């Protein structure tokens, strides 16, 4: 449904995103995960034809976002970050305006408005001015506007930002209920959000895709072992043997670029640093360096694993 190939966007001399590749299948909910400033919003703006890409191409529902923008925009529902709305309008008149510019046929307008009012639970505020609504309601009005023409593709940029825990759960339930009929891309910088709503995850950092897989597989891949980088001054053939004999160590591999350097992999949860240091000192190899290795993906994950207050982490339904 959505194919992104080598996509790049340059602001001035800096690339906000570069060589971006991923695809989304029909009916799937894709989590678009990345720390703040990773290029999530830029990517979504390109997909919704708001910004032109500097290089590469993207296709939505078979149409090129640059050459056939109008066709793409007909099929997309987009909730931008901070859901921009016309504050001086009432909810109903705002939604009526959206049906008109989205090209909903005149006969269907009333039904569509009633349907999204009900689905997003904003029926009780439908005659209020948007500027008088709370942040949670505004977010839902924005979502209603994105859903109003029943688009094939939904692009939601941080839909739960600024909501209270109860509202977050409601919005997530709503998004989950869209799977199947709609293809959804959901951007977020909150890890638990993805685990609860999305079937597949694309993780980007500094404008590049770091990983693309289901969440379970990613977790598996990440946390197989603890890794430690060690470097000694007087290297010899017995160094790897001795290190491998330490309890908990799974393998010892030399680092090609650094003479005397080894990567020590141990089982999950085992901290072998003390033992390694003791042996190196005992054998008088001269310890130059020892540090735990953090993979870039793990690094990204660390930035993403923010605690969400008030929401039970095992919230599933």
């Amino acid at each position, binding site marked *: 449904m959505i194919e992104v190939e080598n996509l790049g966007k340059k602001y001035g001399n800096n690339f906000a995103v570069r060589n971006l590749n991923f695809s989304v299948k029909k009916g799937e909910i894709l989590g678009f995960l990345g720390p703040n400033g990773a290029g999530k919003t830029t990517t979504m703006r390109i997909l919704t034809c*708001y910004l032109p890409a500097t290089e590469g191409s993207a296709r939505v529902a078979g149409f090129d976002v640059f050459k056939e923008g109008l066709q793409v925009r007909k099929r997309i529902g987009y909730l931008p970050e901070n859901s*921009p709305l016309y504050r001086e309008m009432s909810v109903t008149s705002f939604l009526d305006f*959206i049906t*008109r*510019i989205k090209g909903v046929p005149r006969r269907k307008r009333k039904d569509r408005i009633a349907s999204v009012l009900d689905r997003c639970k904003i029926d009780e505020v439908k005659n209020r001015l948007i500027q008088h609504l709370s942040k949670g309601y505004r977010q839902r009005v924005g979502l209603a506007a994105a859903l109003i023409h029943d688009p094939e593709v939904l692009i939601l940029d941080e839909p739960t930002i600024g909501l209270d825990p109860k509202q977050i759960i409601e919005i997530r339930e709503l998004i989950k209920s869209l799977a199947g009929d709609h293809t959804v891309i959901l951007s977020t910088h909150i890890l638990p959000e993805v685990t609860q709503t999305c079937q597949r995850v694309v993780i980007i950092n500094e404008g590049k895709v770091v990983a693309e897989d289901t969440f379970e597989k990613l977790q598996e891949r990440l946390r197989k072992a603890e890794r430690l980088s060690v470097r000694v001054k007087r290297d010899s053939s017995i160094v790897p043997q001795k290190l491998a004999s330490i309890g908990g160590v799974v393998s010892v591999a030399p680092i090609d670029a650094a003479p005397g350097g080894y990567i020590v992999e141990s089982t999950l949860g085992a901290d072998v640093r003390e033992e390694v240091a003791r042996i190196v000192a005992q054998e008088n190899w001269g310890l130059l360096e020892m540090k735990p290795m953090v993979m870039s993906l793990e690094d990204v994950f660390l930035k993403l694993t923010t605690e969400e207050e008030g929401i039970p982490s095992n919230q599933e339904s």
Partner: protein
Amino acid sequence: MRNIWAILLRELKVYFASPIAYVFTAVFLIVSGFFFWSILQMFNTWCMQAMQYPQYAGQLNINEMVIRPLLQNMSVVFLMIIPFLTMRLFSDERRTGTDELLLTSPITMNQIILGKFFGALSVVVVMLLLTGLYPLFAFQYSSPELGPVMSGYLGLVLLAACFIPIGLLCSALTENQIVAAVLTFGCLLLLWVIGWSAESAGYMTREIIRYLSLTDHLEDLAKGVIDTKDIVFYLSFSAMGLFLTKMALESRRWR
């Protein structure tokens, strides 16, 4: 067409659901009402004098002496208030981020610009229709010619159709409404007074400057002369303003 209508309708809703349109109309009616009153006072004095010196009576003409100055004064008021009418049109969308909403909908840039243009123009037309009351008084107590009144109003609408695109352009250039209004006012004022510099310039330059001056083209229309030359000038000026607005908006996306 339907999309232009949707944008236009929303703009009108904003103008008329908020105090904006009412304040504009009220101020415009009061100011032009004062002009009408003071011009009429002057005309009455002349009439009194004409009673004493009957040889001048033939020169009295309500079209030339009341309605034409009134319309010209209204065009000066346009200069002052149109920048405030157009200042929010694009800058506010940009500031609140709602341009993202419009530009990701299946409507084209042209439709958005035209919708906003006709929205602002409709407010001006409503204001002008209400000032029709003043000439109506003139018809009640005197017998002016209808033709020049109509062509004068046509000229004012065309003048507004030239002012509004300049306002749109300035509004598209900035996020700040005040900056947009001041820029618009500056541009309009320059185009207004450019004719003054014509006198001291050489022949060719003088003709070009005269042609560019927005007011010179209003003269004929206010006299009742509908010349295609003036209408073509106004329409092409307006079209160029709208085109530049489109360029300004498009170029912002590529940055």
